[in-house]
């Protein structure tokens, strides 16, 4: 499979960093097209920086970021994003929130008005896929946290992005809701050929969802370990209770513990 996101030997220092310590240093990471990659690491290791670099919200001080064969020099326009905070706009209904990216991205932007019905149908089918069928007319603040997060996933996917960036999207949810959303995410990934980069603190989440897991060191962040996850797909939640799964999580935990100690 071709490489889709290629972050090569990147060092990045935020302009506003007071101590001048790089957020990431000599970071190299390659993610294949259609792959589900997870990035885990201790807090403050520059995981969010990596997301901003891959989407062109930040440009590296050194090294190169290549997405879809092109060096990133502006926001990439083909990315969808979801965060721990669902960031729904309270004055729009859930459906209108989901349609928001279409008001920005071409070619949808100029087509939206005339092909509204087609896009609404698409949004509704996405809502159905995440288990929110018929809830589009509600305002986001009428939905629970888990439901808002599902809607936020729909918003990230509505414009058929080639790259989906998830920054601890399930971090604020209770464990049952979280596991439900893991399955939603698993099915969305299976249904759409989208490359996913998931940044998370939750090692079980990474192990359940990802094809490959990258462990980052503490700041300045680098990749300290890379691990293929070979469980066959489609995966059932039951695998999270298998000894192989526990072993994998344990191994990852070892890497993180070491990274924390090194800091």
């Amino acid at each position, binding site marked *: 499979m071709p490489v889709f996101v290629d972050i090569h030997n990147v060092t990045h220092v935020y302009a506003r960093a007071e101590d001048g310590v790089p957020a990431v240093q000599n970071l190299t990471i390659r993610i294949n097209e259609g792959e589900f990659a997870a990035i885990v690491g201790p807090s403050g290791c520059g995981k969010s920086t990596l997301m901003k670099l891959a989407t062109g919200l930040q440009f590296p001080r050194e090294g190169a970021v290549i997405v879809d064969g092109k060096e990133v020099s502006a926001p990439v326009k083909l990315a*969808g*994003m979801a965060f721990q905070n669902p960031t729904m706009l309270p*004055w729009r209904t859930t459906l209108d929130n989901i349609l928001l*990216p279409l008001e*920005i991205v*071409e070619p949808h932007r100029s087509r939206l008005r005339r092909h509204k019905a087609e896009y609404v149908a698409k949004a509704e089918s996405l809502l159905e896929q995440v288990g929110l069928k018929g809830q589009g007319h509600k305002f986001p*603040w009428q939905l629970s946290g888990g439901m808002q997060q599902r809607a936020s996933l729909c918003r990230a996917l509505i414009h058929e992005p080639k790259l989906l960036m998830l920054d601890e999207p399930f971090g604020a949810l209770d464990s049952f809701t979280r596991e439900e959303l893991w399955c939603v995410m698993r099915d969305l990934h299976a249904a759409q050929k989208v490359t996913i980069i998931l940044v998370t603190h939750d090692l079980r989440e990474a192990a359940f969802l990802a094809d490959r897991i990258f462990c980052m060191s503490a700041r300045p962040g680098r990749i300290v370990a890379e691990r293929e996850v070979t469980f066959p797909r489609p995966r059932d939640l039951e695998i999270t209770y298998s000894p192989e799964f526990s072993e994998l999580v344990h191994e990852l935990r070892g890497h993180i513990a070491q990274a924390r100690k090194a800091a």
Partner: protein
Amino acid sequence: MKTKNQLAIAPYIFTIGFFLLWEIACRVLSISSFILPTPSTIMLAVWEYRSQLAFHAMHTLWMTLAGFGLAVALGLLLGMLLGSSRLINAGSYPLLVGFNSIPKVAVVPILVFWFGVGWVPPVLTAFLISFFPIVVNVATGIATVEPEMEDVLRALGASKRDIVFKVGVPRAMPYFFGSLKVAITLAYVGSVIGEQNASNVGIGNLLTRASAAFEVPLVWAALVVLAVLGVVMYAMTAYVENAMTGWAQRSQMAA
């Protein structure tokens, strides 16, 4: 349900109670009506001077609304500008604050030099005194868009303009309508100050003439009319706020 009813009638009970206390205090302590007339004397004066008061009040209302309208239009524009550019915000804030700190009474003479006595100084005073809270509130609403939301849109290739109009401006609306309640009362103070110093009509002018002639009941009657008009205008903006930004008023506290 019981608390709801109590809340609904509370404003009337409190207002009537306030005037009753005032009336009783004046009579029991036999305060001279030159110092503090009783509410009943004032109401009689309002009735006696009703046509004069109505004429001047209408004029003041016009001055206030004109100044307020100007403040809304320019305040929105300036607020959007300040909210969307950190450079303009940082650069112009000291100027704005300095300007806002000048008591507007002190500006009225300058307005008279420029425009003479008439309707222009009260309108401009109302505008000058009321546009600042609108600017600050709109700018704050736009400048405090969640960084995640901005990232979501920028990663899609949204321009600064897209972000300001899709997220910033709607988000600033509760701030904007909230500031209107402050601005309308300020505009009102402004137009009365303008009229007192640079107009031949309006409640402000009436006040100046009545106090010069020691017509104490008329002075008090004018004050009462001012207060009533102020409450009415405040209630109107509060109603507009409710109608426009219901989505922002969903907390248990507001319910």
